[in-house]
């Protein structure tokens, strides 16, 4: 008997199939997020904010109030909502460009202020929507449109370690983790804990997710999976980096 995978309840069926490229990791992150929202029963009080970048394609993804904002500015919009209405749960959803380059000051300051929001940052090692340029997370030697001979760390620096930074600068109560679309169950748990952390009012929550972009990596299925499972974890080790009052996985 064939069992079809169930769509999360919080998804908006009218906008499916979604608009991401085949093999894109965004769909899996949003599936994990949808399941986490369902399990926690928070669909009616969660506000989802998406950035510019491929994340913007999620503007009508859920049956959840959603605001699509500007490149790098999703974090302050969610902070603004949370400060005004603490009873709402706010999730800022962004790419590595949005979170680590243009919007890094917002990430740093929201973490420092211990703002009670949840940030999910999709790390696909590239600026996808603008056509595959170098991102802060592009790995050494990786070819992109603006590093056609491969990223040279002497010239452009090393890949940014976001969760490590957030773990270092955040305060008591913060939850920080790195998941991967290659480890779905673990990813869903991380996202769930990141929202639970906000619900408990403990502190800032941040999850980076290693994700795929076959379109801009110009990879087939096997190479895509290889890059995600073998290359990326060398630079970005998955796992929990900060768990308030709990054991780290």
């Amino acid at each position, binding site marked *: 008997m064939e069992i079809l995978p169930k769509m999360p309840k919080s998804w*908006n069926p009218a906008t499916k199939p979604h608009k991401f490229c085949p093999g894109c990791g965004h769909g899996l992150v949003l599936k994990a997020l949808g399941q986490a929202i369902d399990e926690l029963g928070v*669909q*009616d*009080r969660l*506000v989802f904010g998406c950035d*510019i970048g491929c994340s*913007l394609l999620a*503007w*009508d993804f*859920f*049956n*959840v*109030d*959603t*605001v*699509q*904002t*500007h490149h790098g*500015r999703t974090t*302050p*919009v*969610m*902070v*603004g*909502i*949370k*400060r*005004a*209405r603490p009873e*709402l749960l706010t999730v800022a959803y962004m790419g590595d460009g949005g979170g680590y380059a243009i919007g890094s*000051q*917002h990430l*740093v*300051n929201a973490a420092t202020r211990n703002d009670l929001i949840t940030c999910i940052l999709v790390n696909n090692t590239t600026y996808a929507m603008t056509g595959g340029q170098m991102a802060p997370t592009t790995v050494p030697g990786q070819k992109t449109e603006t590093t056609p001979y491969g990223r040279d760390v002497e010239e452009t620096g090393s890949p940014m370690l976001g969760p490590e930074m957030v773990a270092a600068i955040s305060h008591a109560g913060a939850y920080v983790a790195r998941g991967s679309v290659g480890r779905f169950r673990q990813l869903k748990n991380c996202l769930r804990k990141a929202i639970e952390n906000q619900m408990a009012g403990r502190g800032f929550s941040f999850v980076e997710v290693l994700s795929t972009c076959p379109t801009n990596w110009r990879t087939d299925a096997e190479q895509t999976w290889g890059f995600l499972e073998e290359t990326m974890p060398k630079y970005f080790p998955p796992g929990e980096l900060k768990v308030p009052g709990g054991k780290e996985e």
Partner: protein
Amino acid sequence: MTGNEVVAWGALAAGAEIMYGYPITPQNEIMHYWTRLGPRFGKKFLQTEDELSAGFTTIGGVLAGKRAFTATAGPGNVLMQEPLSMAEAMRIPVVVVVQQRGGPSTATVIYSQQEVTLTCFGGNGEGLRLVYSTAFHQELFDYTVKAFNAAWKYRFPTFVLADGYQAKMRESLVIYDPAERGIEMVPSEPLVGKPGMPGTDRPPAHLRNAFSVEEELLAALGKDIEEYEAAAPEIVEADAFNAGEAGLLVVAHGIVFRSVAMAVRELVNQGERVGYFRPITLRPFPGAQLREAAQGAEQLLVVESAYGQLNKLVLENLYGSGVPVRTLFRPGVGITPEEVAEKCRALLAGKEG
């Protein structure tokens, strides 16, 4: 009290609930007074990391249904144009107080009318904003109250545009509860986080400013422009004196208007054929009122502490009327009634132009 204190009291009277802000002279004391009023009146405040964040967090507050506002000036106003473009595109009723400072804005912090173009037309968009230019402390209070009402009524970003002089100087003020004057405050309401299960009890709010096809954007913009144009006659405000009689009509806004008003009244007392026209709303601009005031005038004099930012609006709105327009531009510098009177006398005597 100082103008900045007036703004804080005005926001309080208007029922503002939360301010998001980033320090910049000359608006700092708005935050200082607001944070002092905060604990007494249950008001919230967040000091953000920069003006981009101040603008975007204000948007968040408004989306959450609160009467939220921010204040800035100079380079902060430049940075804030990004969030304000979003507010304009998404019809988010943010209220912003701008205490203009001189330019380029990294150094001069005292006085200017050089943020007119930026405030009216900055950012990506067509300038679908409301801009009230104040001249007196009482107006700072009145128009701060009005700004919250207009923002929530029309759903366009709304500005109170003052300047460093108004921010820092002291003048007396009558504080009042708008209700006592019969002013009914337009209620704020949440754009996200309404009661009920989205998708079941109510449609989910799916707010965006990115569109997949050009026609979709054109349709959205077309509707906004139409609504803006339809509301404009109701929003515009202007003040005129002796306009019909005037051989010379002097046009000024904001604090410069005070010098103009003094000079014109004195000249009229001396029997000169002078009048003034003052736009109070710079966006939308009271174009019809200006044309009417300018009818029969032999010449116009535009006076401003900028290099023709008001003048651009005047010329655009006077196009085709044929009245010659003279100017007195003192960018970033105060203008005294004596200077205005001297210029007027010279023009009336046919000495200049």
